[in-house]
């Protein structure tokens, strides 16, 4: 026992510098905040970063720190053969391992708890009667414990990775990427990421213990620890030796054999998944359901024009060629709207199938779906996505790289450009009157949705400049209709050419780089001789004008309120009550997400069924439980105003998962 304690003390001494580094990483703000902030205005939530859904960055820091500490345990002792001195001591190998691991864990736990102590210091001077009392011992002890827990879990992973020396970092880097990706694709699997331990959830003021995640990651960490023991102290010495600079043929063959078996199994799995799920037309469906033939084969064909190269499903040749034949004239109209004479060559994939969007653009590439789309809609989507391509070129990607503050302008001005282009005189005879009428109707309903959000949810233009806080409260698809009214307001206040000029202004020489929000638009608009306040006035006027013109329609739109009404092992039942008679054509939708930090692609939508017999009328939504993770979730009720337009949503609400 005494030997173990002595060893532990020796290890703690050797880890002291790394502990200090950890302190600098976690508590370095003890120096930086007084230099950059007035600490008597700090709140505990702000300095500790413990708002619901936050914590990803801190988990990343703990990841680095835990790996540093773990890599300090064994590799060097082996490289410099000092481990042999330890083996020569009259103690068991397990004791050596235990002492090293305990020292590492103690260091990390100390760093985590010290972090909260310094957080206390950083907010202790705040006298505010409302936000100055967030620091409560119960909350703080839970925060520190969970921080320590995630550090310990990651330490064991680091210990295991260190068996493979620096090559051990490679699979963990890929794993880290994969976990982020999995979370994006299947939000309900977020619990696979150890960072979930510090992504806090609350019930009222109470920070909830993530018992399930603690148990899972604790178990995985124990396995990693056992594997690390086997690698460093046990029977797998030879595998470890493989990654030292000396190796033997036998260990190499063993390693390669294992990798080959594991690799081929994984490849087979991936091929099976890709073939089964990812290739369009192969999704498993109910075999008993009748299915009309929509596509003869999945062969693709290619068509080129002066400005575009299209790849499309051969079975959709007719509508595609109608689009292709008009695409150059459409692009010319788009360039006229934004005043840009040198459009780049654009490649378009028309075989896109997505539940999230009708089209997507990046650089000079566009993907959009052709299946089930009418001709005018294809024209509109192509114009919208082409506008994105031009935005990227004209702003030298500035708009795309600063989506946190430009998203509404990016989507809204692309929508505005598409509407303007299709209404442009140069397209008379290219787009049919019927197509132009359809597009004009879409614009009307789009404005209606924007005006309803303005009036009912009190969405202000200023709210749209901070995408993160906007998406916490409101429907993010408002970026299209509401953003379009922003572009229209710019055009009304400063002329039709102002929208294009503003896009260019973001890339002008000497444009300030670090400016965000209202200040960014104020500055960019000023640079083209347009006043931000004039745009605000024009926007108010546009909204008021739309509300006046659409009063009857707006009054007929019911408001939806409700929440969880039940559930079983497989599903959760939500119900929305309508405050007035439902509209005959309306469809209803609920969208769900884990928390406000969820990306658009992590939001899942489910249609509802209207019960008109009920008084008042109700819409029921069935949400698969697998779409929800954690103790709480958020939901957003919305309704169709017109099948062609974006839905009109209420505001996000929160509920416990039943």
């Amino acid at each position, binding site marked *: 026992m005494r030997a173990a304690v002595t060893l532990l003390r020796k290890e703690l001494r*050797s880890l002291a510098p790394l502990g200090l580094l950890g302190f600098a*990483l976690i508590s370095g703000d003890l*120096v930086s905040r007084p*230099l*950059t902030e*007035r600490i*008597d205005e700090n709140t505990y*939530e702000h300095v500790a970063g413990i*708002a*619901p859904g936050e914590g990803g960055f801190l988990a990343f820091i703990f990841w680095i720190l835990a790996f540093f500490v773990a890599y300090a345990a064994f590799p060097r002792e082996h*490289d410099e053969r000092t481990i042999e001195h330890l083996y020569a001591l009259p103690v068991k190998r397990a004791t050596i391992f235990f002492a090293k691991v305990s020292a590492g864990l103690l260091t990390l736990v100390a760093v985590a708890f010290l972090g909260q102590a310094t957080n206390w210091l950083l907010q202790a*001077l705040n*006298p*505010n*009667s409302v*936000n100055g009392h*967030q620091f409560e011992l119960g909350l703080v002890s839970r925060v520190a414990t969970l921080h320590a827990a995630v550090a310990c879990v990651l330490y064991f992973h680091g210990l295991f990775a260190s068996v493979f020396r620096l090559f051990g970092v*490679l699979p963990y*880097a*890929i794993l880290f990427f994969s976990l982020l990706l999995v979370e994006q*694709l299947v939000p309900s699997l977020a619990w696979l990421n150890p960072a979930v331990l510090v992504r806090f959830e609350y019930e009222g*003021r109470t920070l909830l213990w993530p018992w399930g995640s603690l148990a899972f990651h604790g178990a995985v960490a124990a396995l990693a620890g056992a594997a690390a023991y086997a690698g460093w102290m046990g029977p797998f010495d030879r595998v470890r030796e493989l*990654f030292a*600079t000396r190796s033997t043929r036998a260990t190499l063959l063993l390693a*390669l054999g294992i990798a080959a078996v594991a690799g081929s199994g*994984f490849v087979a799995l*991936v091929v099976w998944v890709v073939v089964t799920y*990812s290739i369009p037309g192969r999704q498993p469906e109910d075999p008993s359901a009748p299915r009309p033939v929509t596509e003869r084969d999945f062969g693709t064909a290619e068509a080129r024009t002066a400005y575009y190269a299209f*790849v499309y499903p051969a079975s959709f040749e007719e509508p595609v060629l109608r689009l292709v034949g008009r695409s150059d004239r459409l692009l010319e109209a788009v360039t006229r709207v934004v005043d840009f004479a040198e459009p780049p*060559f654009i490649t378009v994939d028309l075989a896109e199938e*997505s*539940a999230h969007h009708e089209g997507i653009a990046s*650089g*000079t*590439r566009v993907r959009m779906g052709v299946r089930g789309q009418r001709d005018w809609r294809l024209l509109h989507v192509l114009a919208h996505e082409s506008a994105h391509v031009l935005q990227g070129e004209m702003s030298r990607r500035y708009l*795309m790289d600063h989506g946190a503050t430009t998203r509404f302008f990016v989507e809204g001005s692309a929508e505005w450009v598409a509407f303007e282009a299709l209404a442009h005189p140069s397209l008379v005879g290219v787009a049919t009157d019927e197509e132009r009428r359809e597009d004009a109707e879409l614009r009307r309903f789009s404005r209606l949705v924007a005006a309803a959000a303005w009036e009912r949810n*009190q969405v202000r233009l*200023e709210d749209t400049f901070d995408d993160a806080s906007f998406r916490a409260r409101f429907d993010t698809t408002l970026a299209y209709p509401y953003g379009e009214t922003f572009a229209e307001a710019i055009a009304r206040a400063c002329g039709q050419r102002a929208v294009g000029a503003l896009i260019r202004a973001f890339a002008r020489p000497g444009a*300030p*780089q670090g400016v965000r929000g209202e200040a*960014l638009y*104020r*500055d960019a608009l*000023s*640079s083209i*001789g347009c006043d931000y*306040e*004039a745009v*605000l*006035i024009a926007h*108010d*006027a546009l909204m*008021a004008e739309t509300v006046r013109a659409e009063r009857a329609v707006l009054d007929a739109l019911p408001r939806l309120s409700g*929440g*969880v*009404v*039940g559930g079983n092992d497989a599903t959760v039942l939500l119900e*929305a*009550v309508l405050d007035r008679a439902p509209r005959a054509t309306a469809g209803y939708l609920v969208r769900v997400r884990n928390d406000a930090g969820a990306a658009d692609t992590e939001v899942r939508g489910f249609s509802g069924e209207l019960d008109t017999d009920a008084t008042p009328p109700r819409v029921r939504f069935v949400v698969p439980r697998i779409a929800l993770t954690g103790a709480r979730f958020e939901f957003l009720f919305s309704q169709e105003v017109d099948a062609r337009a974006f839905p009109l949503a209420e505001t996000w609400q929160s509920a*416990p998962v039943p």
Partner: protein
Amino acid sequence: MSSRAAALLVKDLRQHAAVVALATVGLALAWLLFLLATLSAPTTVSYTEVHVTFLRVALVPFALALGNRLVVAELYGRTQRFLEALPMGRLEPFAVKWLLGASILLSVALGSAVASLAVASLREPVDAGLTLSLLSRTVVFCLTIWAFFFTMGQLGKLRIPLYLALGLVAVILAETTELELLRFGPIALVGPDFATSRIGVPWTEVATSLATMGAFLAVGLAMALVREGSVQEALAKPMSSRERAMVGIATCTILTIWAGLAPEPEPEPYRMQGEHVLAGRDVPLRIGYGGPENRAAAEALRARLESSLAALRDAMGWRALPECRVVMRASLDGRTFEAAELRAGDGALVRANFAPDAEPDLEGLEAALVRALFDDRTNRRARFEPQAWVRAGFPLWWAHCRNALTESRCSLSVERRALAQLALDEAPAGPKRVTSSRIAAWDTLREREGERIAESLAATGMMTLARLAGPDAPTRLARALFSRWAPDDSRVVFETLLRPPSWHLRAIAGVEPEAFHRAWDADLAADRARSEIAAWLERVSPRPTARLDVVTAEASQRTLVIDIEVPWRRTEGVVVGVLTKALLPFDTVVEPWELRRDRFVLGPNEHTRRIELAGRVSRGERWLVVVEVEDPREGPGAPVRVLAERREIP
């Protein structure tokens, strides 16, 4: 030479082939994983994205590990000495290792590129432009990162500090210059346009990258050759944990200090422009009035504000005023003002509806502009809670009394004095009073009483101060608190600790804060007894009451039930406003525009009303619920706030 090089190559292959092969299997698996991700990600634009993900996520750490394996391990293990003992120059081992590493990286990267192009060809035209762009970027990127990691490996124990130093330099360059790192050479090669560019070889980025590669190679070569490699030898000792930690701490410290001292690029000062803008004659005032129909109102407002701002400039001891702006916002009512969030130091801007038909509260508007000016001049420190009551009260007092600064009994309007009395009305726990603790908790008072009532109360405090210490005492207090710029750091905190707002109050009023608050309370009590105030209060007496209950609805849904009693003689047209907001688990100050407002209008003789807000609230949430009652026809000009509760939903 070739046989010696071949022998060296065989030795390195024997030593590292298995590990590299194993890592390559891992990289192949990683590629497949990235392919799966690219196929299923809803944001995928081109299948060539699998390759760029591979280069960024997998190839860079692989190059780091390979550099470590081929160079660092050899140096640290001292096996380099065996090579040095062989009858060959120092260039040969250098070249063999470099070429071996480059070949491995290129094989892996080009394999990924070709496979990615093959997948992409299913859904996009793979033409010469795309292929050339992709392959040239891949090759140059690989060679550049390999040159970087290889050379860093040559630097032995210096490489970790150098990694950190390069990172620091990158951060500093990005912050202080217009250089955008993402558009620089090798980083730009794998930038956002990697997967979609069809312009062939991006010559600028390629040239920059090759130059970078050349520079790294030259350094590496110098390390290997200078003084027969003795420098390299000297560095070939691993850093101790202590050294590594110290380097890390030094880096953290430099970054921290840099974060504190880095100059931030500033945009041009905002200058209001446009057709319908009226400029001030003697002060930098601009009024945007929206259209010709509001010009007359704007001119009247200009006359009022010009004299106020000029007097304020002198009173506060400012050499010059920043630009002060008022902008017409027709969607506001005449007594609601919005202060725009400008950059600190960029002046003040208040949005208001000053059209005559909106019956604007011009004193209120003037006060709002002065308040915005204080925020600007103090870098928003004026809002700090211990002095927030002065920020609320002085501007209103100024708007009423600036023309009577020499008179000791200048007074607010009756309406404002009546509003102040509403902050003292009987509460369930007894009459509310002006106390030090209540005034110190100004944000709480503001939430409970409402903006207009709170600022009216604060302005009566200025009247008391003028009575106790002379008519210029409020101005002296405002000048002491709000005339100086407060930096965005803790110097101002220490200054506040040494001289808190109560110290200034004591110095100016000549009495202890408690005594001042007692005097203020007594003044209000005396005012309440005046007939004109009593007549105003009569209109909103007895005070309405409201009770909030949370009732369980289905499952986790809860209903907010608010029972309101309005015991006024006349209730027809009386407006009940229910303001709500879902709160975070932590208390924060809620600004008025963050609240959702539901409006209910009472009918004749409708003295009680039950309001049920269903379908909004669920168990485990926290909500702020505020209930206001106002008689728009006969009331004192502001809603009476009868309930303001932060409630945890059980």
